Protein backbone atom coordinates (compact mmCIF):
# COMPACT_ATOMS: atom_id res chain seq x y z
CA UNK A 1 0.00 0.00 0.00
CA UNK A 2 2.81 2.38 0.84
CA UNK A 3 5.38 0.95 -1.57
CA UNK A 4 5.30 4.21 -3.51
CA UNK A 5 6.62 5.96 -0.42
CA UNK A 6 9.79 3.88 -0.30
CA UNK A 7 11.88 5.17 -3.17
CA UNK A 8 15.07 3.50 -4.28
CA UNK A 9 18.06 5.86 -4.48
CA UNK A 10 17.78 5.91 -8.27
CA UNK A 11 14.11 6.88 -8.09
CA UNK A 12 14.99 9.57 -5.61
CA UNK A 13 17.50 11.02 -8.07
CA UNK A 14 14.93 11.36 -10.85
CA UNK A 15 13.52 14.62 -9.56
CA UNK A 16 16.84 15.87 -8.32
CA UNK A 17 17.84 17.04 -4.88
CA UNK A 18 16.48 19.87 -2.77
CA UNK A 19 13.49 18.18 -1.26
CA UNK A 20 12.72 21.02 1.14
CA UNK A 21 13.75 23.93 -1.05
CA UNK A 22 10.18 24.74 -1.95
CA UNK A 23 7.67 26.39 0.35
CA UNK A 24 5.39 23.38 0.61
CA UNK A 25 6.82 22.08 3.87
CA UNK A 26 6.66 25.50 5.46
CA UNK A 27 3.11 26.16 4.30
CA UNK A 28 2.04 22.79 5.64
CA UNK A 29 3.87 23.50 8.91
CA UNK A 30 1.97 26.77 9.38
CA UNK A 31 -1.31 25.09 8.49
CA UNK A 32 -0.58 22.17 10.80
CA UNK A 33 0.26 24.54 13.65
CA UNK A 34 -2.92 26.58 13.14
CA UNK A 35 -5.11 23.53 12.72
CA UNK A 36 -3.79 21.91 15.90
CA UNK A 37 -4.17 25.02 18.04
CA UNK A 38 -7.68 25.67 16.74
CA UNK A 39 -8.65 22.02 17.02
CA UNK A 40 -7.35 21.88 20.60
CA UNK A 41 -9.36 24.99 21.43
CA UNK A 42 -12.43 23.50 19.79
CA UNK A 43 -12.08 20.23 21.62
CA UNK A 44 -11.52 22.04 24.93
CA UNK A 45 -14.63 24.11 24.29
CA UNK A 46 -16.58 20.97 23.52
CA UNK A 47 -15.30 19.34 26.69
CA UNK A 48 -16.09 22.43 28.74
CA UNK A 49 -19.56 22.72 27.29
CA UNK A 50 -20.16 19.04 27.89
CA UNK A 51 -19.05 19.14 31.52
CA UNK A 52 -20.91 22.36 32.20
CA UNK A 53 -24.03 21.01 30.62
CA UNK A 54 -23.77 17.80 32.61
CA UNK A 55 -23.07 19.66 35.85
CA UNK A 56 -26.09 21.93 35.63
CA UNK A 57 -28.51 19.68 33.83
CA UNK A 58 -30.35 18.70 37.02
CA UNK A 59 -29.39 21.63 39.24
CA UNK A 60 -31.94 24.17 40.47
CA UNK A 61 -32.02 27.13 42.83
CA UNK A 62 -34.72 28.36 45.19
CA UNK A 63 -34.58 32.00 46.00
CA UNK A 64 -36.25 33.61 48.98
CA UNK A 65 -36.55 37.38 49.17
CA UNK A 66 -34.31 39.10 51.74
CA UNK A 67 -35.68 39.06 55.25
CA UNK A 68 -37.69 35.88 54.87
CA UNK A 69 -37.74 33.87 58.08
CA UNK A 70 -38.63 30.46 56.74
CA UNK A 71 -35.33 29.65 55.01
CA UNK A 72 -34.48 26.74 57.34
CA UNK A 73 -37.92 25.22 57.00
CA UNK A 74 -37.65 25.57 53.25
CA UNK A 75 -34.26 23.86 53.22
CA UNK A 76 -35.66 20.94 55.23
CA UNK A 77 -38.65 20.71 52.90
CA UNK A 78 -36.44 20.61 49.82
CA UNK A 79 -34.06 18.04 51.34
CA UNK A 80 -36.89 15.73 52.26
CA UNK A 81 -38.70 16.06 48.93
CA UNK A 82 -38.75 12.83 46.85
CA UNK A 83 -36.25 12.91 43.95
CA UNK A 84 -33.91 15.49 45.49
CA UNK A 85 -30.38 14.14 45.59
CA UNK A 86 -28.88 16.98 47.62
CA UNK A 87 -29.76 20.47 48.77
CA UNK A 88 -27.56 23.14 50.33
CA UNK A 89 -28.13 26.69 51.39
CA UNK A 90 -25.66 29.15 50.02
CA UNK A 91 -24.14 30.97 53.06
CA UNK A 92 -24.88 34.66 53.21
CA UNK A 93 -21.15 35.37 53.45
CA UNK A 94 -20.62 33.62 50.14
CA UNK A 95 -23.47 35.59 48.60
CA UNK A 96 -21.96 38.83 49.81
CA UNK A 97 -18.53 37.82 48.61
CA UNK A 98 -19.99 37.15 45.18
CA UNK A 99 -21.78 40.48 45.17
CA UNK A 100 -18.59 42.12 46.34
CA UNK A 101 -17.01 41.47 42.94
CA UNK A 102 -19.41 44.00 41.48
CA UNK A 103 -20.32 46.19 44.46
CA UNK A 104 -17.07 46.29 46.33
CA UNK A 105 -17.18 46.95 50.11
CA UNK A 106 -20.82 48.00 49.80
CA UNK A 107 -21.69 44.37 49.49
CA UNK A 108 -20.90 43.91 53.18
CA UNK A 109 -23.35 46.61 54.24
CA UNK A 110 -26.16 45.32 56.49
CA UNK A 111 -28.46 47.63 54.61
CA UNK A 112 -27.96 45.64 51.43
CA UNK A 113 -30.77 43.10 51.20
CA UNK A 114 -29.40 39.70 50.35
CA UNK A 115 -31.83 36.96 49.35
CA UNK A 116 -31.52 33.44 50.71
CA UNK A 117 -30.49 30.89 48.13
CA UNK A 118 -30.79 27.10 48.18
CA UNK A 119 -29.20 24.97 45.49
CA UNK A 120 -30.49 21.45 44.94
CA UNK A 121 -29.84 18.60 42.52
CA UNK A 122 -32.45 16.20 41.28
CA UNK A 123 -32.15 12.49 40.68
CA UNK A 124 -33.16 11.01 37.34
CA UNK A 125 -36.91 10.84 37.00
CA UNK A 126 -37.65 13.32 39.78
CA UNK A 127 -40.99 15.17 39.57
CA UNK A 128 -40.09 18.84 39.50
CA UNK A 129 -43.73 19.95 39.60
CA UNK A 130 -44.31 18.08 42.85
CA UNK A 131 -41.17 19.58 44.36
CA UNK A 132 -42.19 23.05 43.23
CA UNK A 133 -45.58 22.54 44.86
CA UNK A 134 -43.92 21.41 48.08
CA UNK A 135 -41.69 24.51 48.05
CA UNK A 136 -44.65 26.84 47.55
CA UNK A 137 -46.53 25.21 50.40
CA UNK A 138 -43.68 26.21 52.73
CA UNK A 139 -42.72 29.54 51.13
CA UNK A 140 -45.21 30.90 48.60
CA UNK A 141 -42.92 33.81 47.80
CA UNK A 142 -40.01 31.51 46.76
CA UNK A 143 -39.00 31.24 43.11
CA UNK A 144 -37.42 28.15 41.54
CA UNK A 145 -34.99 28.54 38.65
CA UNK A 146 -33.18 25.92 36.57
CA UNK A 147 -29.47 26.58 36.20
CA UNK A 148 -29.50 25.45 32.57
CA UNK A 149 -31.79 28.36 31.70
CA UNK A 150 -29.37 30.85 33.21
CA UNK A 151 -26.29 29.25 31.62
CA UNK A 152 -28.05 28.37 28.38
CA UNK A 153 -26.77 31.36 26.37
CA UNK A 154 -23.21 30.63 27.52
CA UNK A 155 -23.55 26.99 26.53
CA UNK A 156 -24.96 28.04 23.17
CA UNK A 157 -21.98 30.35 22.62
CA UNK A 158 -19.59 27.55 23.53
CA UNK A 159 -21.27 25.22 21.04
CA UNK A 160 -21.13 27.89 18.32
CA UNK A 161 -17.45 28.50 19.01
CA UNK A 162 -16.84 24.77 18.87
CA UNK A 163 -18.41 24.59 15.40
CA UNK A 164 -16.52 27.70 14.32
CA UNK A 165 -13.31 25.94 15.35
CA UNK A 166 -14.37 22.87 13.37
CA UNK A 167 -15.13 25.06 10.36
CA UNK A 168 -11.75 26.78 10.66
CA UNK A 169 -10.02 23.41 10.71
CA UNK A 170 -11.82 22.50 7.49
CA UNK A 171 -10.99 25.86 5.91
CA UNK A 172 -7.33 25.57 6.83
CA UNK A 173 -7.27 22.04 5.46
CA UNK A 174 -8.77 23.34 2.23
CA UNK A 175 -6.18 26.12 2.13
CA UNK A 176 -3.42 23.57 2.70
CA UNK A 177 -4.83 21.48 -0.13
CA UNK A 178 -4.86 24.49 -2.43
CA UNK A 179 -1.23 25.20 -1.53
CA UNK A 180 -0.35 21.59 -2.31
CA UNK A 181 -2.09 21.81 -5.69
CA UNK A 182 -0.05 24.91 -6.52
CA UNK A 183 3.12 23.22 -5.30
CA UNK A 184 2.36 20.12 -7.38
CA UNK A 185 1.76 22.20 -10.48
CA UNK A 186 4.95 24.13 -9.85
CA UNK A 187 6.90 20.91 -9.41
CA UNK A 188 5.41 19.53 -12.62
CA UNK A 189 6.39 22.67 -14.47
CA UNK A 190 9.92 22.51 -13.06
CA UNK A 191 10.27 18.91 -14.11
CA UNK A 192 8.32 19.09 -17.37
CA UNK A 193 11.35 18.00 -19.38
CA UNK A 194 12.05 14.98 -17.20
CA UNK A 195 8.39 13.99 -17.38
CA UNK A 196 8.36 14.28 -21.17
CA UNK A 197 11.44 12.11 -21.38
CA UNK A 198 9.95 9.56 -19.01
CA UNK A 199 6.66 9.48 -20.91
CA UNK A 200 8.53 9.14 -24.17
CA UNK A 201 10.41 6.15 -22.84
CA UNK A 202 7.22 4.48 -21.73
CA UNK A 203 6.61 5.60 -18.16
CA UNK A 204 2.99 5.41 -17.08
CA UNK A 205 1.15 8.24 -15.38
CA UNK A 206 1.22 6.14 -12.24
CA UNK A 207 5.02 5.93 -12.31
CA UNK A 208 5.43 9.66 -12.83
CA UNK A 209 2.79 10.47 -10.24
CA UNK A 210 4.41 8.30 -7.60
CA UNK A 211 7.59 10.39 -7.85
CA UNK A 212 5.75 13.64 -7.12
CA UNK A 213 3.42 12.02 -4.65
CA UNK A 214 6.39 10.76 -2.66
CA UNK A 215 8.16 14.10 -2.75
CA UNK A 216 5.10 16.03 -1.60
CA UNK A 217 4.22 13.39 0.99
CA UNK A 218 7.65 13.75 2.56
CA UNK A 219 7.41 17.55 2.51
CA UNK A 220 3.92 17.38 4.00
CA UNK A 221 4.98 14.92 6.70
CA UNK A 222 7.96 17.06 7.71
CA UNK A 223 5.79 20.20 7.65
CA UNK A 224 2.97 18.59 9.62
CA UNK A 225 5.27 17.27 12.32
CA UNK A 226 7.10 20.59 12.57
CA UNK A 227 3.82 22.47 12.89
CA UNK A 228 2.50 19.94 15.39
CA UNK A 229 5.62 20.25 17.53
CA UNK A 230 5.28 24.04 17.59
CA UNK A 231 1.58 23.73 18.43
CA UNK A 232 2.36 21.32 21.26
CA UNK A 233 4.77 23.86 22.75
CA UNK A 234 2.19 26.63 22.56
CA UNK A 235 -0.49 24.41 24.08
CA UNK A 236 1.85 23.47 26.91
CA UNK A 237 2.47 27.16 27.61
CA UNK A 238 -1.26 27.75 27.63
CA UNK A 239 -1.89 24.80 29.92
CA UNK A 240 -1.73 26.91 33.10
CA UNK A 241 -4.48 29.14 31.81
CA UNK A 242 -6.38 26.09 30.68
CA UNK A 243 -6.19 24.70 34.22
CA UNK A 244 -7.68 27.92 35.58
CA UNK A 245 -10.44 27.72 33.00
CA UNK A 246 -10.88 24.08 33.88
CA UNK A 247 -11.47 24.99 37.50
CA UNK A 248 -14.12 27.46 36.49
CA UNK A 249 -15.91 24.78 34.54
CA UNK A 250 -15.47 22.00 37.03
CA UNK A 251 -12.18 20.62 35.74
CA UNK A 252 -12.85 20.33 32.01
CA UNK A 253 -9.73 19.15 30.21
CA UNK A 254 -8.87 17.32 26.98
CA UNK A 255 -9.77 13.66 27.16
CA UNK A 256 -7.72 10.75 25.85
CA UNK A 257 -9.86 10.72 22.71
CA UNK A 258 -9.21 14.42 22.24
CA UNK A 259 -5.45 13.82 22.42
CA UNK A 260 -5.80 10.94 19.99
CA UNK A 261 -7.63 13.25 17.56
CA UNK A 262 -4.90 15.90 17.94
CA UNK A 263 -2.17 13.33 17.31
CA UNK A 264 -4.00 12.06 14.22
CA UNK A 265 -4.53 15.52 12.73
CA UNK A 266 -0.96 16.02 11.39
CA UNK A 267 -1.08 12.54 9.89
CA UNK A 268 -4.47 13.27 8.37
CA UNK A 269 -3.11 16.52 6.95
CA UNK A 270 -0.19 14.61 5.43
CA UNK A 271 -2.54 12.06 3.92
CA UNK A 272 -4.77 14.83 2.58
CA UNK A 273 -1.82 16.67 1.03
CA UNK A 274 -0.55 13.47 -0.56
CA UNK A 275 -3.95 12.57 -1.95
CA UNK A 276 -4.53 16.08 -3.32
CA UNK A 277 -1.05 16.11 -4.87
CA UNK A 278 -1.75 12.78 -6.52
CA UNK A 279 -5.01 14.02 -8.01
CA UNK A 280 -3.41 17.27 -9.17
CA UNK A 281 -0.49 15.49 -10.84
CA UNK A 282 -2.69 12.87 -12.49
CA UNK A 283 -5.03 15.57 -13.79
CA UNK A 284 -2.11 17.53 -15.21
CA UNK A 285 -0.53 14.46 -16.81
CA UNK A 286 -3.77 13.49 -18.52
CA UNK A 287 -3.56 16.69 -20.56
CA UNK A 288 -0.46 15.32 -22.28
CA UNK A 289 -0.51 12.47 -24.79
Amino acid at each position, binding site marked *: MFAWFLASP*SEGRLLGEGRLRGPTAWVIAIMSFSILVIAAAGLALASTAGMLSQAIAERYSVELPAGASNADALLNAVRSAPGVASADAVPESEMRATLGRWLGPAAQSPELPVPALINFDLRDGANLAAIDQRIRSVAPEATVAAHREAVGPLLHSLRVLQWVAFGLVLLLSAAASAAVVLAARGALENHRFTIEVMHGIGA*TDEQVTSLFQRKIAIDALVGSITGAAAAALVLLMLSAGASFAGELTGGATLSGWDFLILICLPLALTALATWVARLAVLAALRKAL
Partner: protein
Amino acid sequence: MGRGVSGKERKLSHVAEFDSVGLRYGTGAEVLRDLDFRLGQGGFYFLTGPSGAGKTSLLKLLYLAQRPTRGRIRLFGEELTGAPRESLPRFRRRIGVVFQDFRLVRHLSAFDNVALPLRISGATDEQVEGPVREMLAWVGLADRASARPPTLSGGEQQRVAIARAVINRPDLLVADEPTGNVDAEMAQRLLHLFTALNRLGTTVVVATHDLGLIKASPGAKLIRLENGSLADPTGTLRNPPRTSRVEA
Protein backbone atom coordinates in the same frame (compact mmCIF):
# COMPACT_ATOMS: atom_id res chain seq x y z
CA MET B 1 23.33 -4.66 -44.30
CA GLY B 2 21.16 -6.61 -41.95
CA ARG B 3 17.73 -7.96 -42.32
CA GLY B 4 16.54 -4.67 -43.73
CA VAL B 5 17.92 -5.50 -47.16
CA SER B 6 16.63 -9.03 -47.36
CA GLY B 7 14.52 -9.78 -50.38
CA LYS B 8 12.26 -11.84 -48.19
CA GLU B 9 11.29 -8.84 -46.14
CA ARG B 10 7.90 -8.39 -47.74
CA LYS B 11 6.87 -11.65 -46.12
CA LEU B 12 7.63 -10.32 -42.64
CA SER B 13 5.02 -8.57 -40.56
CA HIS B 14 4.95 -4.82 -40.46
CA VAL B 15 6.19 -2.85 -37.52
CA ALA B 16 4.27 0.24 -38.61
CA GLU B 17 1.44 0.80 -41.07
CA PHE B 18 0.28 4.27 -42.09
CA ASP B 19 -2.96 4.60 -44.04
CA SER B 20 -4.02 8.02 -45.36
CA VAL B 21 -2.43 9.65 -42.35
CA GLY B 22 -2.61 13.41 -41.95
CA LEU B 23 -1.38 15.67 -39.18
CA ARG B 24 -2.00 19.28 -38.37
CA TYR B 25 -1.01 21.28 -35.30
CA GLY B 26 -3.95 23.19 -33.87
CA THR B 27 -5.87 24.95 -36.59
CA GLY B 28 -2.91 25.32 -38.92
CA ALA B 29 -2.44 23.72 -42.29
CA GLU B 30 -1.63 20.04 -42.51
CA VAL B 31 2.06 19.35 -42.04
CA LEU B 32 1.63 15.74 -43.14
CA ARG B 33 -0.79 14.63 -45.85
CA ASP B 34 -2.02 11.28 -47.09
CA LEU B 35 0.87 9.20 -45.84
CA ASP B 36 0.58 5.59 -46.91
CA PHE B 37 3.47 3.29 -46.17
CA ARG B 38 4.59 0.24 -44.24
CA LEU B 39 7.75 -0.36 -42.25
CA GLY B 40 8.72 -3.99 -42.46
CA GLN B 41 10.03 -5.73 -39.39
CA GLY B 42 13.81 -5.69 -39.30
CA GLY B 43 14.07 -3.00 -41.99
CA PHE B 44 16.53 -0.13 -42.11
CA TYR B 45 15.03 3.12 -43.35
CA PHE B 46 16.31 6.58 -44.00
CA LEU B 47 13.78 9.38 -43.85
CA THR B 48 14.92 12.26 -46.00
CA GLY B 49 13.60 15.51 -47.33
CA PRO B 50 14.23 19.22 -47.11
CA SER B 51 13.89 21.14 -43.89
CA GLY B 52 10.24 21.66 -43.03
CA ALA B 53 9.14 18.68 -45.08
CA GLY B 54 7.66 17.04 -41.97
CA LYS B 55 10.32 14.50 -41.04
CA THR B 56 10.25 15.27 -37.35
CA SER B 57 6.45 15.29 -37.35
CA LEU B 58 6.43 11.88 -39.00
CA LEU B 59 8.87 10.58 -36.41
CA LYS B 60 6.65 11.99 -33.65
CA LEU B 61 3.80 9.92 -35.03
CA LEU B 62 6.06 6.90 -35.01
CA TYR B 63 7.21 7.28 -31.44
CA LEU B 64 3.74 8.29 -30.25
CA ALA B 65 4.45 11.87 -29.30
CA GLN B 66 1.58 12.92 -31.56
CA ARG B 67 -1.69 11.43 -32.72
CA PRO B 68 -2.66 11.79 -36.36
CA THR B 69 -5.52 14.15 -37.06
CA ARG B 70 -6.79 11.78 -39.71
CA GLY B 71 -5.99 8.40 -41.13
CA ARG B 72 -5.01 5.20 -39.42
CA ILE B 73 -1.78 4.05 -37.79
CA ARG B 74 -1.03 0.50 -36.76
CA LEU B 75 2.03 -0.24 -34.68
CA PHE B 76 3.30 -3.73 -33.98
CA GLY B 77 0.11 -4.99 -35.53
CA GLU B 78 -2.22 -3.04 -33.25
CA GLU B 79 -4.48 -0.17 -34.13
CA LEU B 80 -3.31 2.99 -32.40
CA THR B 81 -5.45 5.74 -33.84
CA GLY B 82 -8.15 5.58 -31.20
CA ALA B 83 -6.20 3.73 -28.54
CA PRO B 84 -6.62 5.11 -25.01
CA ARG B 85 -3.58 6.99 -23.76
CA GLU B 86 -3.22 4.50 -20.90
CA SER B 87 -2.25 1.89 -23.48
CA LEU B 88 0.51 3.96 -25.06
CA PRO B 89 3.34 3.28 -22.54
CA ARG B 90 3.22 -0.39 -23.51
CA PHE B 91 4.02 0.57 -27.11
CA ARG B 92 6.54 3.23 -26.19
CA ARG B 93 8.59 0.68 -24.29
CA ARG B 94 9.11 -1.16 -27.56
CA ILE B 95 10.41 1.97 -29.27
CA GLY B 96 13.83 3.53 -28.81
CA VAL B 97 14.14 7.18 -29.72
CA VAL B 98 17.30 9.20 -30.40
CA PHE B 99 16.29 12.83 -30.34
CA GLN B 100 18.03 15.50 -32.34
CA ASP B 101 18.71 17.41 -29.13
CA PHE B 102 19.51 14.18 -27.20
CA ARG B 103 16.90 14.91 -24.51
CA LEU B 104 19.10 13.65 -21.69
CA VAL B 105 18.02 14.42 -18.15
CA ARG B 106 20.62 16.93 -17.05
CA HIS B 107 20.69 16.10 -13.35
CA LEU B 108 21.11 12.37 -13.95
CA SER B 109 24.44 10.73 -14.65
CA ALA B 110 25.11 9.03 -17.97
CA PHE B 111 24.55 5.74 -16.16
CA ASP B 112 21.16 6.79 -14.80
CA ASN B 113 20.09 8.22 -18.16
CA VAL B 114 20.88 4.96 -19.89
CA ALA B 115 19.26 2.96 -17.09
CA LEU B 116 16.01 4.94 -17.27
CA PRO B 117 14.16 2.69 -19.76
CA LEU B 118 15.08 -0.42 -17.78
CA ARG B 119 13.92 1.11 -14.52
CA ILE B 120 10.68 2.27 -16.10
CA SER B 121 10.17 -1.29 -17.28
CA GLY B 122 10.46 -2.38 -13.67
CA ALA B 123 14.07 -3.55 -13.41
CA THR B 124 15.71 -3.27 -10.01
CA ASP B 125 18.98 -1.42 -9.43
CA GLU B 126 20.78 -4.75 -9.32
CA GLN B 127 19.26 -5.89 -12.60
CA VAL B 128 20.19 -2.61 -14.25
CA GLU B 129 23.83 -2.54 -13.28
CA GLY B 130 25.28 -5.11 -15.69
CA PRO B 131 23.39 -4.22 -18.88
CA VAL B 132 23.99 -0.49 -18.46
CA ARG B 133 27.73 -0.93 -17.88
CA GLU B 134 27.85 -3.17 -20.93
CA MET B 135 25.93 -0.68 -23.05
CA LEU B 136 28.11 2.22 -21.96
CA ALA B 137 31.16 0.19 -22.85
CA TRP B 138 29.58 -0.59 -26.22
CA VAL B 139 29.26 3.11 -27.02
CA GLY B 140 32.74 3.80 -25.65
CA LEU B 141 31.67 5.62 -22.51
CA ALA B 142 32.52 3.10 -19.82
CA ASP B 143 34.71 5.62 -18.04
CA ARG B 144 32.10 8.39 -18.23
CA ALA B 145 29.30 6.56 -16.46
CA SER B 146 29.04 8.99 -13.58
CA ALA B 147 29.36 12.13 -15.69
CA ARG B 148 26.31 14.33 -16.08
CA PRO B 149 25.23 15.46 -19.54
CA PRO B 150 26.40 19.08 -19.22
CA THR B 151 29.95 17.81 -18.68
CA LEU B 152 29.86 15.56 -21.76
CA SER B 153 30.78 16.60 -25.29
CA GLY B 154 28.12 16.63 -28.01
CA GLY B 155 29.31 13.31 -29.36
CA GLU B 156 29.34 11.75 -25.92
CA GLN B 157 25.84 12.98 -25.22
CA GLN B 158 24.73 11.57 -28.53
CA ARG B 159 26.15 8.18 -27.63
CA VAL B 160 24.48 8.27 -24.22
CA ALA B 161 21.20 9.06 -25.97
CA ILE B 162 21.73 6.14 -28.32
CA ALA B 163 22.63 3.82 -25.48
CA ARG B 164 19.43 4.87 -23.71
CA ALA B 165 17.43 4.27 -26.88
CA VAL B 166 18.72 0.75 -27.43
CA ILE B 167 19.24 -0.53 -23.87
CA ASN B 168 15.84 -2.23 -23.94
CA ARG B 169 16.53 -3.91 -27.30
CA PRO B 170 13.61 -2.02 -28.88
CA ASP B 171 11.62 -3.44 -31.75
CA LEU B 172 11.72 -0.05 -33.43
CA LEU B 173 14.53 2.51 -33.23
CA VAL B 174 13.74 6.04 -34.36
CA ALA B 175 16.55 8.56 -34.72
CA ASP B 176 16.05 12.20 -35.63
CA GLU B 177 19.14 13.70 -37.28
CA PRO B 178 21.45 11.60 -35.10
CA THR B 179 24.54 12.86 -36.88
CA GLY B 180 23.57 16.51 -36.88
CA ASN B 181 25.84 17.33 -33.97
CA VAL B 182 28.79 15.07 -34.59
CA ASP B 183 31.73 14.96 -36.98
CA ALA B 184 32.00 12.60 -39.93
CA GLU B 185 33.98 10.00 -38.03
CA MET B 186 31.46 9.92 -35.21
CA ALA B 187 28.64 9.78 -37.74
CA GLN B 188 30.15 6.60 -39.19
CA ARG B 189 30.49 5.10 -35.75
CA LEU B 190 26.87 5.84 -35.00
CA LEU B 191 25.83 4.29 -38.29
CA HIS B 192 27.72 1.16 -37.35
CA LEU B 193 25.88 1.09 -34.04
CA PHE B 194 22.52 1.33 -35.82
CA THR B 195 23.53 -1.32 -38.31
CA ALA B 196 24.61 -3.66 -35.55
CA LEU B 197 21.31 -3.14 -33.80
CA ASN B 198 19.44 -3.70 -37.05
CA ARG B 199 21.25 -7.01 -37.44
CA LEU B 200 19.88 -7.98 -34.07
CA GLY B 201 16.37 -7.52 -35.46
CA THR B 202 15.46 -3.97 -34.63
CA THR B 203 13.69 -1.92 -37.27
CA VAL B 204 15.63 1.32 -37.67
CA VAL B 205 14.29 4.62 -38.97
CA VAL B 206 16.81 7.44 -39.30
CA ALA B 207 15.77 10.93 -40.33
CA THR B 208 18.74 12.68 -41.85
CA HIS B 209 20.02 15.26 -44.30
CA ASP B 210 23.37 13.52 -44.35
CA LEU B 211 23.81 12.13 -47.85
CA GLY B 212 27.09 10.61 -46.84
CA LEU B 213 25.31 8.53 -44.27
CA ILE B 214 22.78 7.34 -46.82
CA LYS B 215 25.47 6.52 -49.37
CA ALA B 216 27.32 4.55 -46.75
CA SER B 217 24.25 2.36 -46.36
CA PRO B 218 23.45 1.18 -49.87
CA GLY B 219 20.99 -1.44 -48.75
CA ALA B 220 18.84 0.85 -46.66
CA LYS B 221 15.46 2.01 -47.88
CA LEU B 222 14.54 5.60 -48.43
CA ILE B 223 11.41 7.43 -47.45
CA ARG B 224 11.42 10.91 -48.93
CA LEU B 225 9.10 13.59 -47.68
CA GLU B 226 8.34 16.81 -49.51
CA ASN B 227 5.82 19.33 -48.25
CA GLY B 228 4.33 16.79 -45.89
CA SER B 229 3.74 14.10 -48.49
CA LEU B 230 5.67 11.07 -49.61
CA ALA B 231 7.69 12.24 -52.59
CA ASP B 232 7.93 8.77 -53.97
CA PRO B 233 4.62 7.12 -53.21
CA THR B 234 5.16 4.37 -55.75
CA GLY B 235 8.21 3.28 -53.85
CA THR B 236 10.74 3.74 -56.61
CA LEU B 237 14.00 4.33 -54.86
CA ARG B 238 17.10 5.93 -56.20
CA ASN B 239 19.69 4.76 -53.76
CA PRO B 240 19.09 1.12 -52.96
CA PRO B 241 18.36 -1.66 -55.39
CA ARG B 242 14.81 -2.53 -56.39
CA THR B 243 14.49 -5.16 -53.68
CA SER B 244 14.66 -2.53 -50.98
CA ARG B 245 11.67 -0.41 -51.87
CA VAL B 246 9.48 1.19 -49.33
CA GLU B 247 6.23 -0.70 -49.31
CA ALA B 248 3.76 1.94 -50.27
